[in-house]
C-alpha cells in the first residue's frame, strides 16, 4: 500500500505532527494530485490559532492545513474531463460546486457550497498527495511557462491581491493607489497595481519592507510607525500633490490599517480590504460613516479569486508581467513548517515560504 507524508493538526495551538498515512481515495469526479510546491500562509497560522470562529470558520480537528498548491495530476476519476496524469495544475482559492447562483454568476469564490483544502480530509496542501473534489472545475491547468512554484507562490495571498486590485478596487492604469501593509498580500497588490500602470504609495511600519516596496516599483513609501491614522493620511497628501488617492488596499486587517486605507482616499475614492482581524478586534471595526457619506467613499471586501479570473492572472505570469515566485525567500520541508507558523504572530516571516520537500 502506498503511503505518504502529511502534516497534521491534532489540536489547536499545539505543534503539528509529521505522519505517514495512506493516500486519499478518489471518487469518479475527483483527481489525485502529487503536490510539488505548497505555500505556507498567515491564514494557516490563523486557522491553527483557532481564529475566525467569530466569522463562522470552524476547522475540523484533526486536519491538514495548506491551501496554496502547485502539483501534477497523478490520477483522475472516470468523469473528469480535460485533465490527465501528468497535467500540471493549481487549485483555486476554494473548491466550488459550479451550479449555485454564485458559480453561475462567475463568482466561484462566493460559492454556496464552497470548501477549502484544509476543511476536507485528504485535501490539505501540507501533504505529498491531495484529493481535489469536482476536479474538472477545481483543477486549473498551468500554462507551459508557469511553474508549480509560481502556483504555490501565487497561492492565496497573491490571488487575493489580484481580485482586490483588479476587480474590487478596480485600479486603472494612471491612478495613484495606496497599499497599506507590505506583507504577503500587500507585496502582491503593489506588484499587480504597478503592472497595471498605477502609481503605488506603499505604507508600512517597517523600513525593510518599504525598501522592498521601492524595489518593486512603489513611487512613494511612508513609514507610519508612531503616526496616528490622521497623521498618516496627512503625510500621504503632502507627498501626493495635496490630494488623497483614488483607490486604496488594506492588506493587513488590523483596524489601524483599515482606517488608514480609508482616510488616505480622495473624495470619491474606493477602498478594498482583504485583511482579516485577529483576536484583538474579533472581526469588528468602527468607521467614520458620516465622513464616508460626505466624501462619497466606497468600501468593498474581497475574498480570494474566482475560477473565472484565473486565465487573466496566469496570462500575466506567463507573459512575465507578474512574478509571484520572486517573493519566495525560502523553500522548506514539511518538517520545518511549524517553525514558520511560530514566527507568524510577530510578523517575522519575510516574503513567501514554500514547501518543496515533502519530508
Amino acid at each position, binding site marked *: 500500500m502506498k503511503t505518504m507524508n502529511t502534516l497534521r493538526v491534532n489540536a489547536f495551538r499545539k505543534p503539528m505532527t509529521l505522519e505517514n498515512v495512506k493516500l486519499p481515495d478518489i471518487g469518479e469526479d475527483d483527481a489525485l494530485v502529487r503536490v510539488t510546491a505548497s505555500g505556507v500562509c498567515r491564514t494557516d497560522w490563523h486557522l491553527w490559532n483557532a481564529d475566525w470562529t467569530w466569522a463562522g470558520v470552524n476547522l475540523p480537528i484533526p486536519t491538514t492545513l495548506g491551501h496554496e498548491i502547485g502539483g501534477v495530476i497523478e490520477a483522475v476519476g472516470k468523469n473528469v474531463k480535460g485533465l490527465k496524469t501528468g497535467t500540471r495544475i493549481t487549485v483555486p482559492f476554494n473548491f466550488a460546486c459550479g451550479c449555485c447562483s454564485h458559480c453561475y454568476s*462567475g463568482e466561484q469564490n462566493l460559492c454556496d457550497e464552497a470548501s477549502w483544502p484544509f476543511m476536507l480530509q485528504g485535501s490539505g496542501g501540507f501533504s505529498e498527495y491531495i484529493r481535489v473534489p469536482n476536479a474538472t472545475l477545481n483543477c486549473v491547468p498551468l500554462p507551459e511557462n508557469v511553474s508549480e512554484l509560481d502556483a504555490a507562490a501565487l497561492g492565496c495571498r497573491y490571488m487575493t491581491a489580484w481580485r482586490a486590485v483588479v476587480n474590487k478596487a478596480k485600479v486603472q492604469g494612471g491612478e495613484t493607489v495606496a497599499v497599506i501593509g507590505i506583507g504577503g498580500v500587500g507585496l502582491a497588490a503593489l506588484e499587480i497595481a504597478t503592472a497595471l500602470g498605477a502609481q503605488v504609495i506603499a505604507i508600512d511600519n517597517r523600513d525593510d519592507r518599504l525598501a522592498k516596496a521601492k524595489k518593486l516599483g512603489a513611487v512613494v513609501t511612508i513609514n507610519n510607525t508612531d503616526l496616528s491614522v490622521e497623521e498618516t493620511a496627512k503625510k500621504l497628501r503632502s507627498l501626493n500633490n495635496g490630494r488623497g488617492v483614488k483607490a486604496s488596499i488594506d492588506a493587513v486587517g488590523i483596524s489601524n490599517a483599515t482606517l488608514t486605507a480609508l482616510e488616505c482616499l480622495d473624495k470619491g475614492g474606493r477602498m478594498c480590504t482583504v485583511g482579516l482581524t485577529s483576536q484583538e478586534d474579533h472581526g469588528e471595526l468602527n468607521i467614520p460613516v458620516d465622513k464616508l457619506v460626505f466624501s462619497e467613499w466606497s468600501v468593498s471586501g474581497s475574498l480570494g479569486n474566482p475560477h473565472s479570473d484565473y486565465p487573466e492572472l496566469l496570462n500575466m505570469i506567463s507573459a512575465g508581467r507578474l512574478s509571484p515566485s520572486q517573493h519566495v525567500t525560502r523553500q522548506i520541508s514539511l518538517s520545518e513548517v511549524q517553525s514558520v507558523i511560530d514566527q507568524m504572530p510577530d510578523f517575522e516571516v519575510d516574503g513567501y515560504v514554500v514547501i518543496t520537500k515533502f519530508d
Partner: protein
Amino acid sequence: MINVNAAVVRTKGGQFELEELILDQPRDHEVLIKVVACGVCHTDMVVRDQKYPVPLPMVLGHEGSGIVEKVGSGVNRVQVGDHVVLSFGYCGVCHNCLNARPFYCDQFYEHNFKGSRLDGSCTHHTHENEPVGGVFFSQSSFGTYALASESNVVKIRKDVPLEIMGPLGCGIQTGAGAIINALKPEVGSSVAIFGAGAVGLSAALAALAIGVTTVVLIDINDDRLAFARELGVSHTINSKSEDPVEAIKCLVPQGISYSLECTGRPAVARQAVEALSIPGICGLVGAAPMGAEIILDINSLLFGRSVRGIIEGDSVPSEFIPQLIELWRAKKFPFDKLIEFFEFSEINEAVEASESGRVLKPVLKIQSY
C-alpha cells in the same frame, strides 16, 4: 424505457408528425420532464427548413415547461415534482461558462444542435429501434416527455401557471435579456426595436419595465404595431410606408441611443444602426441565413455607434428566468399577452399561425398537471 408521443420532422420543410417513440431513461446528471407545454419559436422552423446543419429526423421544440418526473444519478439541483422551465444547453466549465456567459459557451452547438448526446448516443428511438434525433437545446420538448440536462433545468415557483412559462426559456428571455442584460438602456432613455414579433415585443415590455421612457416599435404589420401600442410602447412606425430612420428623427428629436434588430434582415440591420444617435449601440438579435452579410457606412459608425450580437439575451437562465417571473407577478412584464394556446395535435396549425404573423407566440398544451 419511456413511451413518448413526440412531434417529429423527417424531411426538409416538412410537416411535424406525431409519432410514438421510445425515450431513454435519464442517465447521470439528466432529468426526465413531464412536458406540460412548449412554445413554438422561429428557430424550430429554421431547423425544420435545414437552414442550420442539424440532422433529420429530429424531435424539435426548445421552449418547454413541465414537472420533474425522474432524475438521473448525481442530480441534486431539482427533485421529482419540481416545476421547471427548460432553457438552452451549455458545458459549465469553459471560460465563458465560468464567467457567467453560458450563452457563449464554447460548445454551444454541441449542446443545442447536435441531435445526440455529446458521446453520440441517441435519446429517442422508434419502436422499430430506428434512432431519431433529440437533445435539441438539450430538451427536444415537442413531446409528452423530454430528457434534459441538470444544467438547463430551471426550477420555478409552483404558484404560477406552468403552461405560460416555457417561452421564457428562449424567445422571451432573448428579447427581454437583450435589453436588461446586454444593452442596459438607462432610466429615462430611448430604444428603437425593429421587428414586432415575440422577441421584439418581449424586448419592448422589458424596456418599459426598466424605466425606458421612449420605446419605438418598427414593423411592416399594422396589426402587430397596434398590439404594440396596446402594450404601452410610445411610438410605432410602419416601415413599409415610411423610412424608419427619418421617421425616428422626427418622432424622437433627442435621438435613440439604443436599438435592437430582431428581424434577421440585413437591410433592417442597417436601418437599426443609422437610426442611432451619437453615440449609440445596436444589438443584433435576429437570426439570418448562414453567410448573410450587412453593409454598414463607416463614417456613420465612426461617431461612437456600435453594433453587437446578442445570443439568448445574455441570460444566465437559472438567474434570469426567475427574475422575469417576478416581474410578471408584479404585473410589470405581461409577456403572456403574446401567447395563444394550441393543442399538441394542432402543432402544424400553430407553426403556420406563427409564420403567417397571426400569432406572436404559439404555445402547445401537451400534458395536464
